[in-house]
C-alpha cells in the first residue's frame, strides 16, 4: 500500500511551517547536548579505555569494597524507605478519601504536610534531626540527658527520607483512591463483607499497581537523594555520596564516571519498570470515574485510631520543620535558648549571604521561565503534533527524570570541562553561570513536561484544529489558543521550576565553581563544619523565599487564572 504519499505530504506540510521546524531543531539540539550527550560521555568514560572497548574500568570500581558497601547501603535504604513511605502515604490517602474528618484543623494539617516537601530545601529535615536528636539535641540531651548521642547513620537517613518522600506517595495514592468507583465497594459490603474484607479484597487489589508505582518512585528518589545522606549519613556512604566524594576527595573523575554509570543503570531499570509496566497498569485498572460521592466512614472504631496515627505523624513532621527557623534564632543550641538575630547578622556580614542569595535567586529566576516555556512547547509538540523526531523529544525529556542529579553533574564535568568529546568545542560554557542555569533547566524539565502533557490532554484536539482551520499557523495557534488554555499549568510549572532550581544541590554542587555562591551549597558546607545555626539561618531564608513564590502563584491564579465562569463549564 502506498502510505508514502501521505507521509511525504505530512512532511511537506510540516516544512511549510518554518517556526515549528526551527523550534524542533533547537529542542533536539538542546536535548541532545544537555541530556543525551552527558550520559553518553559517562558510558564512553566507563567502557572505552586506551585499547578500545573494555570492562576493566567498571570491574575496577566494582572491586572496591567501599563501593560495594555503598551499593548495598543504597539498595537497603531505598527499599526500606520505599516500603515505609508507601505505607504512610497510603494511610494518609485512605484517611483523607475514606474517613470523615470532622475538624478543619485536620484537613489543614494534611494540606500542609503535602505542600511542605515541595517548598522546603532537601536537607531541612536532616538539620532538624540533628537539632532534635544530635549531641546537643533538645530531645536527646535536654530532655533525656543522653550524652554523646550519635544520630548519624543509616537509620537516620531512612527516617528522614521517609518523612521527605511519603507526601509524594500520599498525593499519588490519593488520586487513585478517588478514582475507585464507590459502588464497587458498596457491592462488596452488600454481599456481606466486613470493612476490613472490603479493603483486602476490593480496594487493595485495585490499588496494587498504583502502590507498586508509588513504591518504585520513592525508591528512585531515595537512591538519587544526595543531600540527606551527605548531611546525616556520617560514615555510611550511598552511591550518590560516594560519587561526590570520588570527585571532591579523590579527584578521580573517571572512577566517578564509572560509579555514575552503575547508579544510572539501577535507576534506569526502575524507571522503565515504573513507566512502562506499572504506570500503565495503575491507570488501566482504575479508568472508571467515580460515579458519585463516597459514603465516608464515620465509625469511631476506625476513625479514631487512624486519625490519631496520621495526626501524630503530621505533627511530628511539622515540628521538625519548625525546628529549623527556631534553631536559627537561638543563641547556643542545647545550652542557651535566648532569642537572637546574631546568626542572621553573621550570614550576611561574615558569610557573604547576600551574594549567595542574589546568585541563587537570579539564576533560578532566569531558569524558571525558560524551563516552563520549554516544557510547555515540548508538551504541545508531543501531544498535538506528528513529526519524525517526536519520539526522541518525548523520550529525552522523560529520560532526564530517571537521571540522578549526581550522575548528571558528573556527566557535565566529564562532558564539558574539556569541551565536547575533549575537543575543546563549547568548553567556554564550563564554569559559567550559563551551565548552572542549564543544569537547573534540565533538572526541572521532566516535571514541567509531565504536568504540561496532562494539562494538554484535557484540551479537546478540535479546539486547536479549529484555530488552525481558521488560518492560524502553528505559532499563532500556540500563542493564542494553547498557552492561554494551559495558563495555570504554565504558571505552576514556572513556580515549581523556580523552587526546584533554588533548592537544587545534587547536580550543581559538582558543577559550581568558587566564583558562584549557591545557598544550598552554603548550607551543606556550614552543616558539615558543624555551624548548624548558620545553616539554619540560611535554610530559613530559603524556605521563606520558596514559600513566598508558591503563595504568590496561588494568589495570582486565584485572581488572574482561569476565570470562575470557565471552571463551572
Amino acid at each position, binding site marked *: 500500500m502506498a*502510505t508514502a504519499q*501521505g*507521509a511525504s505530504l505530512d512532511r511537506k506540510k510540516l516544512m511549510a511551517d518554518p517556526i515549528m521546524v526551527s523550534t524542533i531543531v533547537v529542542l533536539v539540539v538542546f536535548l541532545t547536548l544537555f541530556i543525551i550527550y552527558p550520559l553518553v560521555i559517562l558510558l564512553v568514560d566507563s567502557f572505552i579505555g586506551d585499547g578500545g572497548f573494555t570492562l576493566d574500568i567498571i570491574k575496577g570500581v566494582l572491586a572496591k569494597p567501599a563501593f560495594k558497601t555503598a551499593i548495598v547501603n543504597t539498595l537497603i535504604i531505598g527499599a526500606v524507605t520505599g516500603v515505609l513511605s508507601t505505607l504512610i502515604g497510603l494511610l494518609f490517602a485512605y484517611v483523607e478519601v475514606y474517613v470523615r474528618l470532622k475538624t478543619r484543623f485536620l484537613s489543614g494539617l494534611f494540606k500542609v504536610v503535602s505542600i511542605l516537601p515541595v517548598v522546603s530545601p532537601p536537607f531541612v529535615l536532616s538539620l532538624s534531626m540533628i537539632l532534635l536528636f544530635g549531641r546537643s539535641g533538645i530531645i536527646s540531651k535536654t530532655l533525656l540527658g543522653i550524652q554523646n548521642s550519635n544520630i548519624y547513620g543509616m537509620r537516620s537517613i531512612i527516617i528522614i527520607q521517609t518523612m521527605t518522600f511519603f507526601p509524594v506517595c500520599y498525593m499519588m495514592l490519593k488520586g487513585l483512591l478517588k478514582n475507585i468507583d464507590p459502588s464497587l465497594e458498596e457491592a462488596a459490603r452488600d454481599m456481606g463483607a466486613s470493612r476490613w474484607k472490603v479493603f483486602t479484597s476490593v480496594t487493595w487489589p485495585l490499588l496494587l499497581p498504583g502502590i507498586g508505582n508509588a513504591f518504585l518512585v520513592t525508591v528512585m528518589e531515595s537512591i538519587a537523594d544526595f543531600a540527606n545522606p551527605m548531611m546525616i549519613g556520617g560514615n555510611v556512604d550511598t552511591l550518590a555520596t560516594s560519587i561526590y566524594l570520588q570527585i571532591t576527595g579523590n579527584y578521580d573523575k573517571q572512577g566517578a564516571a564509572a560509579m555514575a554509570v552503575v547508579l544510572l543503570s539501577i535507576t534506569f531499570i526502575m524507571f522503565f519498570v515504573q513507566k512502562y509496566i506499572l504506570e500503565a497498569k495503575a491507570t488501566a485498572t482504575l479508568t472508571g470515574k467515580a460515579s458519585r460521592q463516597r459514603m465516608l466512614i464515620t465509625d469511631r472504631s476506625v476513625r479514631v485510631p487512624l486519625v490519631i496515627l496520621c495526626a501524630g505523624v503530621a505533627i511530628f513532621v511539622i515540628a521538625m520543620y519548625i525546628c529549623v527557623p527556631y534553631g536559627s534564632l537561638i543563641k547556643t543550641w542545647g545550652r542557651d535558648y535566648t532569642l537572637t538575630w546574631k546568626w542572621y547578622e553573621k550570614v550576611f556580614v561574615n558569610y557573604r549571604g547576600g551574594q549567595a542569595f542574589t546568585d541563587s535567586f537570579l539564576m533560578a529566576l532566569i531558569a524558571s521561565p525558560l524551563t516552563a516555556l520549554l516544557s510547555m512547547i515540548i508538551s504541545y509538540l508531543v501531544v498535538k503534533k506528528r513529526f519524525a523526531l517526536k519520539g526522541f523529544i518525548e523520550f529525552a525529556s522523560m529520560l532526564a527524570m530517571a537521571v540522578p542529579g549526581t550522575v548528571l553533574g558528573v556527566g557535565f564535568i566529564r562532558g564539558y570541562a574539556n569541551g565536547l568529546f575533549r575537543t575543546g568545542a563549547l568548553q567556554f560554557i564550563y564554569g559559567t553561570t550559563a551551565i548552572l542555569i542549564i543544569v537547573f533547566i534540565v533538572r526541572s524539565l521532566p516535571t514541567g513536561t509531565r504536568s504540561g502533557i496532562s494539562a494538554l490532554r484535557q484540551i479537546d484536539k478540535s479546539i486547536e*484544529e479549529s484555530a488552525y*482551520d481558521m*488560518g492560524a499557523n502553528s505559532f499563532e495557534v500556540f500563542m*493564542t489558543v494553547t498557552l492561554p*488554555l494551559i495558563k495555570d499549568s504554565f504558571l505552576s510549572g514556572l513556580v515549581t521550576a523556580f523552587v526546584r532550581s533554588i533548592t537544587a544541590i545534587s547536580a550543581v554542587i559538582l558543577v559550581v565553581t568558587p566564583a558562584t555562591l549557591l545557598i544550598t551549597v552554603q548550607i551543606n558546607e556550614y552543616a558539615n563544619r558543624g555551624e548548624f545555626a548558620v545553616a539554619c539561618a540560611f535554610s530559613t531564608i530559603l524556605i521563606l523565599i520558596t514559600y513566598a513564590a508558591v503563595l504568590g502563584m496561588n494568589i495570582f491564579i486565584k485572581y488572574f487564572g482561569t476565570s470562575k465562569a470557565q471552571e463551572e463549564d
Partner: protein
Amino acid sequence: MAKEKKGVRIEHVSKIYQDPKTGQDFYAVHDANIDIEPGEFVCLLGPSGCGKTTILRMIAGFESPDEGEIYLGGEAINELTPNKRDTAMVFQSYALLPHYNIFDNVAYGLKLRKMDEKTIKDKVTRILGLVGLEGMENRMTNQLSGGQQQRVALARALVIEPGVLLFDEPLSNLDAKLRVDMRNEIRRIQQEAGITAVYVTHDQSEAMAISDKIIIMKKGVVDQIGTPHEIYYQPKDEFVADFIGESNFLHGSIAGIEGNRAIASIEGCEVPVSAVEGMSAGDDCTLVLRPEAALLADTGVLPCTVVLSRFMGNYQNYQVMVGDTLVKITDFNPKNHKIYEVGDRAFVDFKPEDVHVLSGEGGFTVENI
C-alpha cells in the same frame, strides 16, 4: 456572500491507517471519487467507521491522502496546510475558544487575516445577525446553550467566507428536537450565504432533510451518490436500501420479460415488476419493497400469514410471513382500514412500479457490515 463558490473534486483518494490491535494496514478510505458542484450541499452518510470523517478531514487538510489528489475550485491542495486552505470547518464539539467571548471567537479568523477593526466589527455583527445571535457579542462561550454554541461555531466558519464549508456531525451533541430546528437553520443559512457545503452525518433523516446530494459510504468505499430521492427509491444495493429507511427484501428470480414489464418469481408466486436494463429471464433478483409501499388486503400479489399486528396511533404495524420471508408492512391512517389479527391469512399487495429490482441474490445488509 462568499467571494467565490468553489467546487470540490476528489480523485482516486485513499487513506491507509494501521489497526492499533493487529498492527495491520487497512484502507480507511479506498479509491474515493467525488465531484461536488459549487454551491451544492452534499452529505457524506454512513455508519461509524465508514471513512466519511476521514474524507472531510482530508479536505480540511488535517489528514493527508495516501493516494489520489483533492482539488478545491480546480486547484490541487494536497500540499497545503489547513491554515492555507480556503475551507472552514464546524466541529462536532463546537471547538469554540473558551477564553474568548462570542465576538472574539467569530472575529478570530478575520483578525488573522489582518482586517481593520471597522471591517471586522461590521462582518461579525452581520454574521451574528444571520445566525440569530445579535446582541450576544460579549457573552462567554460557556454561558450559551448547545444550540447557541453551534450557531457561534457556524458564524465563525461563515464569516471568513470560505470556498467550502465543512461540517463534522455538527448536531450530534444536541437533543432531538433542537437537532431538527438546527438542521433547517443550517440549510437556510447555507442557501442564503450561497456556499458550498460538505456535511458528515450518520443520521439518515438529517441527510435526507438537508442535502442536494447524498454520498453513501460503506467500509471506506463510496457506495452510491445521488439525490435523496434517488437514494431512497433506487438504492444501488441492499446496503443502501437497508441503511436509508426500512426495506423488505424478497429474493427470487426473473421468470420473463415483456417490453418494460417483467415477471419475478418470488416464493412460487408471479410478481409483476418494472423491467431493469440488462436483466434477462432466469437471472436471480432481489425485490426491495418499502413497508409503506405495501398494503395488507384480501386479494393481492403475495399470500401471507400475519404474525404481528400492532396499533401505533398514526399507523398499524404488521409483520407477515411470505413463505419463509418476514415482511414488514406499515399501514398509515388505519382508522377506516380493515385490521388483520395475528394468524389471519391475507395478501401483500403493491404496484409494480413501487418495487425496486436489484440483480443478484446476495448484496450487503447493514448487519453484516
